[in-house]
């Protein structure tokens, strides 16, 4: 197990190194740089002013030097300065992380707490009217894009309550705090709840057909004991995998949701930074996301061993 851990950690570092190269060079391939964008906003191009600005921002240096400055700074925890706000990049990124983490955490909680029980119910009640209703709900969750769902929620909120859950950094009431995070979390978590529901259902159906389930029933175990103790415990592995992968993919949904609900989180900030080609922000932020995703995969792998004693990582 220890050797496996070391190997996985080494592979993680290699993966992150590869990602850093891809992030850095892909960003440079994107047409237009920060100087172009700044001049586009100013509506003119002056070659002399442009050259001065490139020199000031250090983007006139060879790419390899720029990469070295960035990656060595990243490892030291020095993220450089945002080209747009001219504030330290870390100072810009850090306050936004808890906002997105709260939103993502709540979305995952929403996904697991709704998706797993409904998936179990759907499997246990296979072929009933309830099963069909739940399958339609899960299918709609997979089909509705989060930007559309978000706008639908906003429009409904205005039409019904004359209120709109726009991000409020200092919520006065519990209801405001709830509206701040829960509604957008539901919008983004709906898709992953639907996916969790479908995976739980199919995994449960497969397990429920196993001999040991039949044996448990034959021994007189109650339905609850069979479904939740025997079946769910064995069916949960693919669900954990999916939730882990969803955690990584959540950033895509969050970009849209944070934009629609005007939440000043990391995801929306990333899109804005890309739009401005604000390299220090984009590079460091994507790198941080990569670290989170790679670590999430690592944790999921480790959780396999916790949930399934049959799995032994002995190499």
């Amino acid at each position: 197990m220890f050797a496996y851990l070391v190997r996985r950690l080494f592979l993680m570092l290699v993966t992150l190194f590869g990602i850093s190269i891809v992030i850095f060079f892909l960003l440079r391939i994107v047409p237009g740089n920060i100087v172009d964008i700044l001049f586009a906003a100013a509506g003119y191009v002056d070659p002399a002013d442009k050259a001065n600005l490139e020199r000031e921002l250090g983007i006139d240096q060879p790419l390899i030097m720029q990469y070295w400055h960035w990656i060595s700074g990243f490892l030291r925890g020095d993220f450089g300065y945002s080209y747009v706000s001219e504030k330290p990049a870390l100072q810009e990124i850090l306050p936004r992380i808890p906002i997105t983490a709260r939103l993502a955490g709540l979305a995952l909680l929403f996904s697991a707490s709704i998706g797993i029980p409904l998936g179990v119910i759907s499997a246990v009640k296979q072929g009933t009217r309830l099963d069909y209703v739940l399958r339609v709900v899960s299918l709609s969750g997979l089909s509705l894009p989060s930007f559309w769902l978000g706008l639908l929620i906003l429009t409904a909120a205005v039409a019904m309550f004359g209120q709109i859950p726009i991000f409020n950094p200092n919520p006065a009431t519990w209801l405001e705090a709830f509206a701040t995070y829960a509604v957008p979390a539901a919008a983004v978590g709906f898709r992953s709840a639907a996916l969790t529901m479908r995976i739980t259902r199919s995994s449960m159906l497969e397990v429920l057909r196993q001999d040991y389930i039949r044996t448990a029933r034959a021994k007189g175990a109650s339905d609850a004991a069979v479904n939740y103790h025997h079946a769910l415990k064995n069916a949960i592995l693919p669900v954990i995998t999916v939730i882990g992968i969803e955690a990584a993919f959540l950033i895509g949904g969050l970009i849209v949701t944070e934009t629609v609900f005007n939440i000043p989180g990391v995801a929306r900030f990333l899109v804005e930074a890309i739009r401005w080609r604000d390299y220090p922000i984009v590079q460091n932020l994507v790198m941080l996301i990569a670290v989170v995703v790679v670590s999430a995969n690592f944790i999921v792998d480790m959780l396999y061993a916790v949930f399934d004693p049959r799995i032994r990582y002995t190499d």
Partner: protein
Amino acid sequence: MRSVWALAATAALSLLAISTMAFAGEPKQGGILRMYHRDSPGNASIHEGATYSLNVPFMPIFNNLVIYKQDEPQNSLKNIVPELAESWAWTNEGKTLTFKLRQGVKWHDGKPFTSADVKCTFDMLMGKSQQKFRQNPRKSWYNEVNDITTNGDFEASFNLKRPQPSLLALLASGYTPVYPCHVSPGDMRTHPIGTGPFKFVEFKANESIKLTRNTDYWRKGRPYLDGIEFTIIPNRSTAILAFVAGKFDMTFPTEVSIPLLKDVKSQDPSAICVVEPNNVSTNIIVNSTAAPFDNADIRKAMALALDRKAFVDILFEGQADIGGTMEPAPAGLWAMPKDMLETIPGYGPDVKANREEAKKLMQKAGYGPDKHLAVKVSTRNIPVYRDPAVILIDQLKSIYIDGELDVVETANWFPKVARKDYMLGLNLTGNAVDDPDQSFYENYSCGSERNYTNYCNKDIEKLFDVQSQETDIAKRKKLVWEIDKKLQEDVARPIIFHARTGTCWKPYVKGVTVMSNSSYNGYRYEDVWMDK
């Protein structure tokens, strides 16, 4: 005796009526004006920007030497009033403009305002000082200024190479705040210091901009508001819904399109909305340095093929204006009369006849029903650019031109145009001041950075200078009309239409004036108050 009593009673009633009226309309102090902002400005330094995304939130921090009266919708030389200057005088046969400056004015950090601040601001704009702006889009505004001299702490003179009466108009623009000498241009980008009615509190990129009342403002009793908060919401649907739901007191100025205006009025009938022209023209930039548009006949044919009314009907439900370079009347002060406009090829009401003439020109150039000309119509990937480009392509079909839409990311647009790497471009031009000097020199003079088409006509250039020096407004207008007509006939940058857009606010917001011939000059907000 009876008449005396009657007179006294009438006077008393009149006084009562006047005092009641005054009471009902008496501005109240207090309140934070909440607005949404359409996007995150690149920085906070007005001098380094060319978008009103920057002017709207940061103009309240500053003062100019002079400014257009903020409660009159139409900017003109007649309604320029002093701000940091108490008075001004032209001397030396119109070649010296001297300002007497206001005394006792303090910067928001407590330092005194003096003539040195005026000198260093304009020296930086002219590129004559040690400290430089990172970007300086309006440097050409001061081409005729030799230098700035000061006489003591409270007098500053602009010494010109030749008379330029409209310099005052440029100085009155929202784009011309006075900066403090003791703050670096870099600091002004992130933490601007001004003398204006509101102080900068914070600017969180992509999130919000907050301003608070300047309690030491030199204009006593102003501002009425305790502060202004802009929440940055790039998603227009969300922003409008939030306004309707009461999260905001006002929309971002001139940002509500005509179709959206209907939505606002249907969902919030109490909202006060105005639609005004904003001196932004939608136009075609023609690369006349390369084939096929190096052929004057093809350029002229294209201009003749335009059905401007169709653009206005489709995109604005009829609410936009047709004109030349200068903004159309009545909002615009320099627009050609209608009968003169209609003599320009392509502006006549008979579109069919225009297009027949265009076809003949195309045939002369070697094209016809069997041989169409293929062109790329490049434009930015934004609806206000893309939508008219699609209509343009459709209209060009009528004269044997097959257009293909070439959508360019904003980051690439200006470099591409500067490289002349395009055939036709659909472009928007916002004029900061409704003044021919600003429009002509910036967009049509040889070598100007914003002259995207490289149009260069030395004869016209001479006329630019003649009109610029003319002090008789009536005479200057006639010259301007002639120049504008010639620019359209030369297909220098064919103007398709001038847009109109909406601004909405809640009924308790008072004292808002939306400028009708500028998108850049009406955001001081010191007269705005809330009846709450």
